[in-house]
């Protein structure tokens, strides 16, 4: 029976090449996109180097303030990273987290060295930064809590920055590196962070306390991101509650503005929100929109195939009528049709997976991911069994979805109509 179905599937597929192409096209393309998308996500979220282990870390990197002058429409609002004062005096004191770090993240640093223009990244951090992220020290040590509090002129540099400034010199600890008007003493050299890192980025690191705080006393905006590390993900809720409570108090005290804190979000959450309005995102509408979009994207080929199937029912009329006359029950015909349809979608899925291999292999470099301002990371094929299985299951569901209604219609056709005496 299955053999018989299989033969019919092959014959029908080969005889109607256009239909086969149209059916496979949509599904293959969708599966290809899903595979590539998942590779992208996994490339960005499976941290390497200092970001190896971020699963117990959440981030706050956006604050939004809105004008709330009474009697006027709420129009003006601004969004930015967290201000230094609000970070230092409030967020950093979150007790629910085991480690809290504040840092600017990679900021552009442009300079001329030996007559050549250079663009590197500098990152102003606290001491906890070195605890939270897992940098590999090649020599020396990170700056300490006291040194940060006292604003010590210290710097940690990467191996590549060391090579840029000092060439092959072995020991550069204690040497001076200039950043704008600051003379920084090198206390440590670290291995360069992974290019796909999004938080632990930079060539030059120094205590943020070295720069004067120029914020207005009532400002909440600034350039800082906060990272909270717990023992496990169960701590996230407490961290979220505590930070939001702090901000709520600030909000209550401020009569002219509403203050809103985005997050804390995981790495993936942060990525999904992107530069979208943090308030909207926190309401879940961005996520909802994304899921809706993803669903539509995934359902599209199924709907397309269903339409094709409906359009083609009559082509199968004679065969169905003959099968019925010789004893096929409607249920049996439905399973035949579903079987064929699922074979079709699975074929599409396999083609899609092969396509994603090819695309990533051939175009991996031009499909590089702009993970942060400073680095492009080429996409490489990462075979994710989970995504693979999910893709095949999705194909199965496509097959069922797009085949079920047409199969019912088909199995209910009156055989007599297709068995008229004359030539058809």
């Amino acid at each position, binding site marked *: *029976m299955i053999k*018989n179905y299989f*033969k*019919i599937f092959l*014959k*029908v597929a080969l*005889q109607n090449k256009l239909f086969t192409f149209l059916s496979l096209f949509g599904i293959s393309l969708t599966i290809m996109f899903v595979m590539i998308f998942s590779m992208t996500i996994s490339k960005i979220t499976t941290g390497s180097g200092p970001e190896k282990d971020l699963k117990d870390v959440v981030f706050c990197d956006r604050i939004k303030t809105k004008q709330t002058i009474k009697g006027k429409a709420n129009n003006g609002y601004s969004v930015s990273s967290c201000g230094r004062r609000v970070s230092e005096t409030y967020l950093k004191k979150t007790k629910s987290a085991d480690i809290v770090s504040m840092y600017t993240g990679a900021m552009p640093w442009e300079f001329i060295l030996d007559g050549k223009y250079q663009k590197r990244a500098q990152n102003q951090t606290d001491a906890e930064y070195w605890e939270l992220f897992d940098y590999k020290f090649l020599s020396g040590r990170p700056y300490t809590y006291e040194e940060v509090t006292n604003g010590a002129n210290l710097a940690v540099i990467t191996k590549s920055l060391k090579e840029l400034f000092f060439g092959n010199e072995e020991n550069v600890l204690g040497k001076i590196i200039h950043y704008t008007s600051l003379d920084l003493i090198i206390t440590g050299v670290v291995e360069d962070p992974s290019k796909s890192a999004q938080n632990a980025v930079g060539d030059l690191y120094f205590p943020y306390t070295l720069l004067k705080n120029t914020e207005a006393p009532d400002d909440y905006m600034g350039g800082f991101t906060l990272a909270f590390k717990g023992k496990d993900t169960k701590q996230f809720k407490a961290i979220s509650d505590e930070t939001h409570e702090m901000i709520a108090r600030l909000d209550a005290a401020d009569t002219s503005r509403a203050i809103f804190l985005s997050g804390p979000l995981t790495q993936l959450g942060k990525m999904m929100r992107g530069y979208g309005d943090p308030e909207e995102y926190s309401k879940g509408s961005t996520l909802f929109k994304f899921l809706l979009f993803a669903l539509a994207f995934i359902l599209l080929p199924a709907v397309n195939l269903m339409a094709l199937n409906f359009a083609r029912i009559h082509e199968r009329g*004679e*065969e169905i*009528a*003959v*099968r*019925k*006359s*010789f*004893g*096929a*029950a*409607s*249920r*049996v015909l439905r399973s035949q049709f579903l079987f064929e349809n699922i074979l079709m979608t699975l074929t599409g899925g396999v083609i899609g997976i092969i396509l994603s291999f090819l695309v990533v292999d051939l175009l991996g470099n031009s499909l590089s991911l702009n993970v942060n301002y400073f680095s492009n990371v080429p996409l490489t094929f990462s075979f994710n069994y989970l995504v693979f299985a999910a893709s095949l299951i999705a194909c199965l569901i496509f097959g069922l979805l797009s085949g079920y209604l047409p199969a019912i219609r088909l199995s209910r056709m*009156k*055989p*007599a109509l297709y*068995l*008229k*005496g*004359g*030539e*058809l």
Partner: protein
Amino acid sequence: MIKLEKISKVYRTREIETLALDNINFYVKEGEFISVMGPSGCGKSTLLNIIGLLDEPDNGKIELDNLPVTSYEDKKTARMRNQLVGFIFQSFHLIKELNVYDNVELPLIYRNMPASERKLRVTESLEKVGLTNRMSHYPSQLSGGQCQRAAIARAVSGNPKIILADEPTGNLDSKIGHEVVSILADLNSKGTTIVMVTHDDMLAKSTHRIVRLFDGRLVG
């Protein structure tokens, strides 16, 4: 073997209502070979479809092989068709995507039958119609006469007690038509009950009995 009592069938379309069968009583004994004749549109195909449970009458009772048909539940009629009836059509209706062997096997795949027995039955049926050397051909590679012989092999592979043939010679020239009918006569001589619709007087006369339909009614 076949017993129709007070069978009526009305086809309704938006414009007209056609009384295709009008209160028909129709009996066929086991082992009979009968011909149904009548002008075009008089209801011959409708009659065969109703005997073969492909269509449901509006009124009346049917018995096949002493089993009254009490409900037209899909599963039941499918099973009865599969066990009791073999169809032969004017335009063969072989499944074009399948070769002769697979076409002949069709009634058997809807039974719980081991592959070895299916193979035996298919080969036997093809022997009966003299088509063993064509079993891997596709319908498009066969002549009309060969197609109809394959269709007969399909109709008999399930060993049905009844064969319903709707103008089986209608698309064939008279020589081949006679061959086909002689194959049917041969099957009949081994006990199969056959109802054949035909327009050919000669062929009809070679059967046991002729039933004439006119405007949905049996005459003469």
